[in-house]
């Protein structure tokens, strides 16, 4: 089955990392661990990955990076408790427990 997405790891350096021309032509999605999802078989996406020196990952490799980040965030959330605090108060204080993420093919 043809891939819909390709993945890379690249650190967002701010201004110029994604410019308006690229954003107009490509749909970007970012995930924990500096994982970026862009369209597969797309000239503009390939040029952007090269521009940002993205380290190309397979979908499974990218999923493993995201999973590690989410697991760490979940552990941190579980360990962050205040004595006497209700579940609702905890969510109000630090937000919902981090949810699992499944990357698209």
């Amino acid at each position: 089955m043809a891939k819909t997405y390709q993945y890379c790891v690249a650190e967002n350096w701010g201004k110029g990392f994604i410019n308006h021309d690229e954003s107009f032509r490509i749909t970007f999605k970012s995930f924990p661990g500096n994982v970026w999802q862009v369209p597969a078989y797309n000239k503009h996406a390939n040029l952007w990955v090269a521009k940002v020196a993205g380290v190309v990952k397979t979908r499974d490799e990218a999923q493993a990076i995201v999973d590690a980040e989410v697991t760490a965030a979940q552990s941190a959330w579980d360990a962050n408790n205040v004595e006497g605090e209700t579940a609702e108060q905890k969510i109000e204080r630090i937000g919902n427990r981090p949810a699992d993420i499944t990357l698209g093919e």
Partner: protein
Amino acid sequence: MSTYKKEVGTAVQNFAGDYTGAVQGQLWYNSTAGSFQFRSVTTTGSWATGGALNTARFRLGGVGIQTAALAFGGQTPANTAATESYDGSAWTEVNDLNTARSALGDAGTSTSALGFSGPPGSTPVQNESWNGTCWSEVADVNAFRGDPGGAGSDNTSALMFGGTVPTGPETSALTESWNGTSWTEVADLNIARGNQAGTGKLNTAALCVGGSGDPDGTEQWNGTCWTTLANINSGRVNLAAAGTYTSAIVFGGAEDIALTEVWNGTSWTEQGDLAQGGKNIGGAGADNTSGLAFGGQTAPGAAYGDTEEWTGAGSPVTETITTS
């Protein structure tokens, strides 16, 4: 046979690289790329990355425009008093709020702003005024709410509407107007809302969008009352907004939404997505052609400091002519 010179009046010019001075529709030969190119314009708005906040956070206050914005308060996830100023490229830390808090309402500009109310259960009614250098406490709001909508020109004129309440009904329809000295209760929203988006440059002209209670609803304030207008296409909560009551954008929302919609005063149109989808994002901007998204919270729950800059449709882009 028709030629480019005959049609346009000049021959195709040769440039080594992108011809930045080209006007819309102009053709040139890029001798570096070895291809013919022409100037086009974007047909939808898009987001580009900007400089990241120094303190990653969500549920923060944000005011100003794309090249002169202010971010204040928020959760890291602990409540923070940090305030930062954006110059169109980078965020610089400036003087903190007097009280660390999140889920606050916001109004004004980067040199004259107001931050009001805050999270349930702690120092809820405080109102602070920014004079371009520091924050000072001013008169409290009448009825505390978390995540209220905010609009207004500066620290002397603001509007606070909707939001969550710590007791009683979960959401509120209350609206209060600030005249630089005190808050006065005015006409309620048509529908009580919490975790909605609010924007507007005057306390007599504001927009309230989405939120729990009416996730796809839009209400417009004319200085006297709220009027229900066209729904957004994708209803949501914890979304952000920027612009005026007749020219605005909404973006982000729970959970992990990257969608952006553009308001022209009558209807909403979906356009380019954020690269970083999230909720509880800070927003600022002049209108639906120029906006700023900063900070936020991803579905895993983490705070981030990413900034994205919105430019509406009509930006110049270079197209390459290919032959096959």
